[in-house]
């Protein structure tokens, strides 16, 4: 559902551009709002959430899907943890549909999907692992199935799944309000082998407003 935000970027408490292919870790407190802006269009933003006080509690794709009875994420979607608790809610969305089935690209899954020689290519999972190693509060074991903001992965009634050209465009954004204190872990996706980034990974902007 397309919903615009009334928040004023000039009043944001934090603003940062994350370059293509970079990880980003941010402690988002309960009540704060995070906006992710797709600056140039069709950029997948692979995102995980952890309970800042117990990173063993994390975003759960299956609990979120089951909770809303639907596969795609948009305004009103409640992001549910693996403990069945509400972590955050999507409160604005000018894109209209976000994915949580496609997961994150990885060196090894690129080998399977494209060619055994693709292992050298940069990937979201490498970003997650490096961010985890630097941060120290979570590790590979805690990396679950992420959200891909701005990514379009349609499923057909016959049970097929495909990666399609994005429905996002430059300046589109999604906004979520934290319900618990969160660690947000992002990889601004470097995938070059499919249309998830329109074959051209680009920067995104992160804006945070206090409660």
């Amino acid at each position, binding site marked *: 559902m397309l919903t615009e935000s009334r928040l004023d970027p000039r009043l944001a408490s934090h603003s940062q551009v994350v370059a293509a292919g970079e990880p980003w870790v941010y402690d988002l407190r309960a009540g704060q709002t995070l906006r992710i802006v797709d600056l140039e269009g069709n950029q997948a933003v692979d995102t995980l959430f952890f309970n800042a006080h117990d990173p063993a509690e994390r975003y759960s794709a299956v609990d979120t*899907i089951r909770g809303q009875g639907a596969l795609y994420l948009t305004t009103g979607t409640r992001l549910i943890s693996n403990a069945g608790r509400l972590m955050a809610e999507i409160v604005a969305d000018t894109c209209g549909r976000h994915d949580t089935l496609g*997961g994150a690209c990885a060196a090894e899954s690129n080998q399977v999907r494209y060619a*055994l020689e693709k292992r050298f290519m940069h990937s979201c999972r490498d970003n997650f692992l490096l961010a985890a190693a630097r941060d120290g509060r979570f590790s590979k074991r805690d990396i679950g199935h992420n959200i891909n903001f701005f990514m379009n992965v349609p499923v057909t009634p016959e*049970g*097929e799944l495909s990666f399609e050209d994005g429905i996002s465009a430059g300046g589109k954004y999604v906004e979520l309000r934290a319900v618990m204190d969160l660690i947000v872990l992002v990889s601004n996706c470097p995938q070059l082998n499919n249309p998830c980034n329109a074959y051209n990974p680009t920067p995104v902007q992160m804006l945070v407003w206090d409660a």
Partner: protein
Amino acid sequence: MPEPNADTVAHRETLRGGESWSFRLQRGFALRLTDLEGGANVALLAFNAAEPLERYNMPDTLKAQHTFRLTRGHCLYSDMGHSLLSIIDDSLGWHDTVCGVADAQAVAAKYGVGRYQELRNDFHRNGYDRFLIELSKHGLGKRDLVANVNFFSKVTADGEGKIRFVPGHSGPGAHVDLRADMNVLLVLHTCPHPLDPSPDYAPKSVELTVWRCGLPAADDLCRGSRPENARGLENTRRCFCQQDWLATHADA
């Protein structure tokens, strides 16, 4: 295609509804799940037995094979680009992997209170707790509880992404065969699917058959079903290249 028969079966047992089970399935062996009564659900997690940090990965499995349903010809991928299990036979055509399991709160909300105190061993067991119990036996826990497969259950999605559980999908005798492509720790239970609309708590029993199926041949069904699976099975073979070399060089 090899079959479970008197020459190949190593073990057979029945698992009650609501029960859990774990097992180290060796490379080249298969597990057949058989729905004995109809309406069963088998929730399954799979790990590399040598390194459980490597585990079944729902998104990598779906996107590698451009599928939302799992059936014959598909591989179940780990997060490390290996095929943990291949579906070498399937009488149903659709198994769910995006709906997870129900916890105690959800089971109580749907079926009412069903405590051991009153019901003894027919108490209402839930999938989340069964996974935690069975994972704990192997030093694993909630951090290892990722999206599972729900065998025998069908959940479809419409054009808007709304999901729907399809009742009556699996009948008595329905079966699926899972070949281990590496040494795999299987953790499974037979609690009802979390979206099963039946108001009665009546989890169904399944038969488990462990049988020798052999390694994937050059013309293997799963290897040939998609080029991705040919690469995935080659990636998996490389994990065993040393022991395979030793097996063919007896005097080395």
